[in-house]
């Protein structure tokens, strides 16, 4: 009874804390400017099914794709087991599904165990790739202490959880063989039966092992749940809405800024009266800080799991330039988190004197981009770092008048001669002269 009470308290506290932190992230995301991504729902569901659920963009790197798939399927399927654990915890039952499900239960437990081994193995391989082989993709200026630790924590926690799960089952399996108490026969336990011989043989020690593992497993899961909002691992939740709200246009198509259209129309046609700007609309061109970006940009920042596929295909990064698309996303997340904390602590209009551009992302980074869309193509969850880079450039050029000098020359040429180079418009047709 006491156990049930403790369990319920822990469960409620964990869910409350998690909801509170998710609420904060939601609030932070909605600090971004509005953008309409509600069109074509059927197409959006399809893309979500394909890219998020089906993980079709992961396969570009097959090794990682297979391992990740094990962990992903493991995560989803083992949730059934977690459901049982929750019910057992609340009602003080033991393996509540085993009776109603009958032989299917044994099959399910068997598949959970196989998946658990696959998850465990994948996590070990991932740890090796990060910490022993030192895969280049997992290094870079933005991969500082915290992001590296974050990745390792996630993998270690998953290994511990799976180990606890298998040990728990092994103890259970042994107790079943002893026909001890409530431990009734519930399937074959294909994996844990193999490690069972490693466990002590006394029923008392086995019960302690089983209970400790049970509590460790479920408390670990609840703790992990509450770790998510602080971690890159939050992608397991946001990947789905983030893909749903993907940009459905062709990658080459950049937005035409309506605020600029109005001004240009007024310039070309003096009789044109631009519509009054919508209420609350910031009159800034481009983005200087995270709140100038759209909510989708900010959602993407929280979705990024820092896998570095974007950076590894970025032509600027490959050739040693400062730009790293992953850093653009991580900086955006760090900054919006900071802005959110400022609001919590100092109220809505607090100015901490920092901005995304310059404090976090330097001009050198944004001017190294070739807008080639390789990063966008590479992202398994349809994150678009190029949109953010473009917005920062727009601010630099249109608000700050701080483009590189050679680009200012190009602008001047285009304005005066209708070409980015210094050629006369009158010479534009010379190429056709009798060749």
């Amino acid at each position, binding site marked *: 009874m006491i156990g049930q009470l403790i369990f319920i308290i822990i469960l409620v506290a964990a869910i409350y804390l998690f909801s509170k932190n998710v609420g904060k992230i939601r609030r932070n995301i909605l600090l971004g400017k509005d953008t309409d991504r509600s069109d074509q729902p059927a197409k959006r569901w399809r893309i979500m099914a394909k890219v998020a659920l089906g993980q079709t963009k992961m396969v*570009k790197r097959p090794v990682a794709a297979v391992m990740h798939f094990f962990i992903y399927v493991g995560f989803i399927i083992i949730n059934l087991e977690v459901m049982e654990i929750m019910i057992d915890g609340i009602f003080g039952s033991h393996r509540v599904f085993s009776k109603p499900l009958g032989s299917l239960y044994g099959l399910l437990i068997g598949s959970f165990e196989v998946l658990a081994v696959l998850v465990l193995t994948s996590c070990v391989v991932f740890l090796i790739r990060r910490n022993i082989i030192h895969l280049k993709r997992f290094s870079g200026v933005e991969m500082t202490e915290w992001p590296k630790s974050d990745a390792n924590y996630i993998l270690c926690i998953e290994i511990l959880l799976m180990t606890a799960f298998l040990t728990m089952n092994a103890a259970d399996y042994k107790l079943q063989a002893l026909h001890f108490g409530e431990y009734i026969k519930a399937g074959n336990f294909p994996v844990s039966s193999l490690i069972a011989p490693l466990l002590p043989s006394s029923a008392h020690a086995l019960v302690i092992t089983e209970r400790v593992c049970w509590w460790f497993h479920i408390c670990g899961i609840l703790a992990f749940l509450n770790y998510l909002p602080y971690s890159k691992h939050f992608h397991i939740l946001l990947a789905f809405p983030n893909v749903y709200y993907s940009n459905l246009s*062709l*990658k*080459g*198509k*950049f937005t*035409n*800024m309506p605020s600029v*259209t109005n*001004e*240009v*129309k007024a*310039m*070309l046609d003096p009789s044109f009266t631009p519509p009054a700007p919508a209420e609350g609309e910031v009159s800034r061109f481009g983005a200087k800080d995270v709140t100038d970006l759209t909510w989708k940009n900010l959602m993407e920042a929280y979705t990024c799991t820092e896998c570095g596929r974007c950076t590894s*295909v970025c*032509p600027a990064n*490959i*050739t*040693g*330039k*400062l*730009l790293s698309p992953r850093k653009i996303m991580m900086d955006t997340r760090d900054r919006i988190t900071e802005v959110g904390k400022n609001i919590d602590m100092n109220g809505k209009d607090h100015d901490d004197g920092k901005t995304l551009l310059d404090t976090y992302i330097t001009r*050198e980074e944004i001017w*190294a*981009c*070739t*807008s*080639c*869309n*390789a990063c*966008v*193509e590479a992202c398994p969850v349809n994150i678009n770092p190029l949109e953010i880079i*473009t917005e920062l*450039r*727009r*601010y*630099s050029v*249109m608000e700050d008048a701080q*483009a590189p000098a*050679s680009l200012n020359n*190009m*602008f001047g040429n*285009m*304005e005066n001669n*209708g*070409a*980015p*180079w210094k*050629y006369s*418009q*009158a*010479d*534009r*047709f*010379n*190429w*056709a*002269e*009798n*060749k």
Partner: protein
Amino acid sequence: MEDINPEVNGNSEIENSKSETFKVPTMAEMLAEGKEPEILFWVGCAGSFDERAQKITRDICKILQHVGMSYAVLGTEESCTGDPAKRAGNEFLFQMQAMTNIEVLNGYNIKKIVTGCPHCFNTIKNEYPGLGGTYEVIHHTQLIQQLIDEGKLKAEGGESFKGKRITYHDPCYLGRGNNVYEAPRRALEILDTELVEMKRCKSNGLCCGAGGAQMFKEAEKGNKEINDERIDEVISINATVVAAACPFCMTMLTDGVKHRDKEDEIKVLDIAEITVRANRL
């Protein structure tokens, strides 16, 4: 990278060509004669001013004339689409250019456009409609593919590419930007030659380094030029011809070949040039 060869209309050689003189019709002339061409050829700034790209522009005209397609150009009425300004963040300048161009295009009642440059192609096709300019826009490699599929264009009577190893460099704004991967390859497949793909091709293609207005500025500090990185990949697969489909890629790849001292071994040719050569137009 900052400057292109300022020499306009030098006496560049037209190898393998019948060297027939041709007259390029302008929209203004067409209008005066009360005619409407089937398609407008949007030449683009590089195609108009860059010496190397001018040759490709003329080759596209040769193809159009060879198949007897009625076309015209804007000539001196054409102006930059605004692409480099837009990618650089100067949305004002972009929209000024766009609206001015749209006025000209709509004034001539243009319905269909073929461009010689993926940047012009992308901008007019995707970004002009929102500003009042909606046209059917194709890139010249798509036109070539259509002509091949219709049987109007073959690869015969001209230079043989036999024994050469040709690879195709995907321009970002044609490939990833607009998912056009097969059209340019189709033009190469009809050649009697070996097509080899680089590891980074199609949607994984590596940029030449010129996009996003990089063409008009010095590269930021790094340890390698992007075009050298690309040419190293070309060298690694022992290709002897790199097919391009973008004037900026053309400049970057040609420079890369020069940097690696491979001018004798590796030729950079536009799909239009290859087509013209293969047919001796």
